[in-house]
């Protein structure tokens, strides 16, 4: 297991959002600014690592007939942990991400990795899988959010970079902008992959 190739797998060849088309709902909804994108990415990565580790450790105990409810209970517990910790210590981010924190429970990436990877592999490699997949998700969110925040607000990470003469293109921070940004990034990635 080579960390570099694993990382490449998470960010590029099996990127959850831009290649597998998983987790599109949070990617659309929380990518209106880079800060929110990173917040969502880190929160989901944390849940992903924890759930992958626990599910992998218990993979021999959990009977396959009840594995889905078992996975969901485990994932929901970690999501609630993130929700409470964020509300207590990062209130601004918690307010900005709002309903999308509890909705990490139904983020397909997490259940998808539990089912496809963690339930069949050892603890260590499941942890690595959680890390690289989470990084890939975060990178995708940051890429989408960069496009949207720069065009739609003239700023990057909350800092105004295009000057006061720039008229922000509101479409990009509204929901249709998320679809456009994801579509063009996805098309660009496929174009690059096809040329290789």
């Amino acid at each position, binding site marked *: 297991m080579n960390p570099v190739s694993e990382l490449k797998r998470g960010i590029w060849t099996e990127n959850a959002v831009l290649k597998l088309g998983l987790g599109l709902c949070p990617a659309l909804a929380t990518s*209106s600014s880079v800060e929110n994108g990173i917040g969502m990415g880190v929160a989901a990565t944390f849940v992903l690592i924890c759930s992958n580790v626990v599910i992998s450790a*218990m993979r021999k*105990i*959990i*009977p396959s*007939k*009840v594995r889905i*409810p*078992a996975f969901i*209970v*485990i994932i*929901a*517990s970690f999501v*609630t*942990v993130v929700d*409470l*910790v964020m*509300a*207590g*210590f990062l*209130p601004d981010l918690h307010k900005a991400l709002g309903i999308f924190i509890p909705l990490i429970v139904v983020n397909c990436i997490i259940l998808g990795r539990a089912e496809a990877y963690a339930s069949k592999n050892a603890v260590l490699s499941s942890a690595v899988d959680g890390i690289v997949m989470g990084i890939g998700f975060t990178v995708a969110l940051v890429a989408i959010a960069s496009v949207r925040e720069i065009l*739609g*607000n003239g700023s990057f990470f909350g800092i105004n970079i295009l000057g006061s003469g720039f008229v*922000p293109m*509101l479409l990009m*921070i*509204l929901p249709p902008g998320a679809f456009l940004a994801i579509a063009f990034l996805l098309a660009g990635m496929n174009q690059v992959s096809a040329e290789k």
Partner: protein
Amino acid sequence: MKDISRLALVLTLITAGSALLLAMVEKVTREPIAQQRRLVTLGALKAVLPPANNSPDQDTVSLVTGKDSKGNDEQTTFYRGRKDGAVSGVAFRVVAPDGYSGSIAVMVGIEPNGQVSGVAILQHAETPGLGALIEGESWKNQFKGKSLDNADWRVKKDGGHFDQITAATISPRAVVGAIRKGLEFYKANKDQIIGG
């Protein structure tokens, strides 16, 4: 039969484990979350009230201000700021039900003589870059010093005294209308609010 009892046992163990985890996290985060909630309220109160040296969130009176859709009484909490014992201002939450997308919650601070001392937008879902500009300082500051006697509580487009926002008239109109209703209620019930 044996199989089913095994499934039940495993699921019970998993849910018990997650309940334990959540109970621990809740215990740790209970205080910080309550503290954050209080800070949010205090911050809004400090922004709208004239200088005070008490804790306005501890010095409150609740009055029935209307009926909800089911015909039950609706209560509003009035926070009183005091300077050396005398009431220097009152703050309370008003809700504009007619925002462009959903209702807008506003904290209004009023001096004892009925003049507005400050306005803070607590919650809204208006369009970013348009209706959301009601959160701008210069827009909120126009209410300072205005009362029912010295201003016409409508936006300029409707013949009143208050600026609308270019291309977004609905949100400012909703906020101005809600503040006016709050001022009217204060005027009619001043003795109960300050004295009670």
